[in-house]
């Protein structure tokens, strides 16, 4: 299967290791992976801010870059959902683009969903010994149904002990620009999430969206918690190169 990796703007800028972990996992699952070189952003920030025109313009670009692969995989529920769920409706007035959008949308997957339901990854390359707790990012959960998949993959790692937190499906408060525009509200929600994480006593918090992870890590550290590790699920599953210490 020939697929294209949608790296996401946050992974590109902030934590490339997630992108490389995703590459490794997809290859371990037997896929040929290309990384379209001109990719930048899925357009969600503009879309959620109400700038439909800007979102459509970016969507056009993405569709042009990713049309023609068997699948598009993103290590992010929110970016995958943007493409899969929201792209087609951006072109209600343009039948050709709409068809292309539907084509790309129909082949776009969040990483863990892909590794469970499309190109199943039976042997997990990474190694992790210890406890962790999993945060269900909103878009992946509610727009794409991602919940069992990451847990199924983690369950195949013998050293992993998952301790579920209370309210794992409650929003962490990131919400893109919400985290800055309504900073105190956002931090309050992040603080609740950190409290639930602390209650589990887990050594690490893991999630499938870097936005959530940056938000949670930022609040953890400001709260004085320097010991709870913060990992993207791709990093845990891929392991390697001492990434998950």
């Amino acid at each position, binding site marked *: 299967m020939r697929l294209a990796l949608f790296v996401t703007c946050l992974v590109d800028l902030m934590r490339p290791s997630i992108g490389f972990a995703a590459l490794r996992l997809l290859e371990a699952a037997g896929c040929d992976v290309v990384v379209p070189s001109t990719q930048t952003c899925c357009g969600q920030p503009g879309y959620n801010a*109400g700038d439909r025109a800007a979102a459509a313009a970016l969507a056009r670009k993405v569709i042009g870059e990713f049309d023609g692969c068997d699948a598009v995989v993103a290590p992010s529920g929110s970016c995958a959902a943007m493409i899969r769920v929201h792209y087609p409706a951006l072109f209600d007035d343009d039948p050709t683009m709409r068809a292309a959008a539907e084509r790309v949308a129909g082949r776009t997957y969040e990483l863990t969903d892909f590794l469970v339901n499309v190109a199943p990854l039976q042997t997990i390359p990474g190694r992790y010994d210890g406890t962790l707790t999993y945060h269900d990012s909103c878009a992946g959960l*509610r727009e794409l149904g991602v919940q069992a998949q990451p847990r199924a993959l983690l369950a195949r790692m013998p050293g992993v002990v998952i301790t579920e937190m209370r309210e794992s499906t409650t*929003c962490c408060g990131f919400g893109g620009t919400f985290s800055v525009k309504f900073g*105190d*509200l956002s931090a309050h929600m*992040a603080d609740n999430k950190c409290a639930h994480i602390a209650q589990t006593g887990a050594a690490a918090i893991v999630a499938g969206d870097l936005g959530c992870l940056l938000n949670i890590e*930022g609040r953890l550290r400001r709260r004085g918690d320097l010991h709870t590790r913060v990992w993207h699920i791709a990093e845990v599953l891929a392991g390697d190169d001492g990434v998950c210490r």
Partner: protein
Amino acid sequence: MQVTALQFKRRAAENLRDENLQRALARLQTKFVNGRAAAIAELPDYGSIRDAAAEIRDRVLRDLDGYLRRFEQQATARGAVVHWAESAADVNRIVADIAAQHGVRRIVKAKSMVSEECGLDDALAARGLDVIETDLGEYILQLAHEPPSHIVAPVVHKSKEDVADLFAAAHHRPRTTEIRGLCREAREVLRPRFLAADMGITGANFLVAETGSVVLVTNEGNGRLCTTLPRVHVAVTGIEKVVATLEDTTTLLRLLPRAATGQSITNYVSLLTGIKGEDEGDGPEHFHIVLLDNGRSRLLGTELQPMLRCIRCGACMNHCPVYQGIGGHAYGWVYPGPMGAVLTPAFVGLEDTLDLPHASTLCGECAEVCPVKIPLPDLLRHLRQQQVERHLRPWSERAALRAWAWLARHPALYATGARVVARALHLFAGRKGRLRYLPGVSGWTHERDLPAPAGRTFRDLYRAGRRR
């Protein structure tokens, strides 16, 4: 009721720091959220009942005028008088005129959000009428001169100590903070008012087109008292409350109490049709039903139409992490939480409610728990779009978004920009690997660190040959 939604940010900030309020809001979690979950779990067919409920509401909305005409015809045939009101002011005028027409002096009132929307109590008081709220929560609010902070649990923001203070001042009895004692006190104080009232005002949870009936769901018994003893009953409600049949009402009743409070059914459900017969001892001699538009019909045929399905259960706000953090008063009008963030701009106007559709991460919990499947995040996003189209967003915000979108469409420039930012932030963060402060994003850094970027972008590393 006056709109103060432009105060949202300020009020939200205050409420986040209000420990009493935070404690009170935590109770919503344990009671209503857990209650709903347990009650829904008891319905093995929940999914299909919910689908049916959404269709029941949509069906009426597709032919709202037809069903309203039918309701009016049936209600009138049973001796009710149906009035139509375009605006809040019209409702107030109509109800005051009804009171005058029937020589009414003393009014008892059951809970009605529509009456809050209209500011009906104040309008009637201004005409010299004695209006007392009888729903315990609304009675407490009346004593406190405050608006409700939740559509089902209006005084969720108050502690029993707050209530004890209000009662002690108003009833001239020894102060008690014992909840049962407070409830009994309210019963004793309000009972004579029921018995002496000329007119009862209620809302309507549903209007049944088949029979011309008003449906009221209550727990306290005040709704029954308001509609049994006084000689005049006035029901005020929105035009969108119509349902087709008794069976449709029952389907909705399976979900409304469960979604709202976790009850399988409210203590009382009253189906009220027309005036009392000649040989009947109780019931009103006059029954007036006031149908309010106030912007509802303008939502039909627009992307916001699904909002009219709402059956006012409050589940959305109970589950909303934003509402859970700040409570209802921050939203600045009658309807708080996710449904309020849609209805307030829709009814009152975008200009006066700029923050409301944006004060959300679009997490989708509200839509998940809505018993009639209203796609609230999509509606909030639609309102955000409308703000952009009408140039209501701050210039700086528009410019930043445009700049981002432009840059993202120019990959070479984007790559350079990203390279520079990644490097710079990585260096500023130093050994600690995080920044405590960054100009321009103080909303983030005020209470959170910003983890530093790795220093090189994925693009650059991949181009340089890294693959794992």
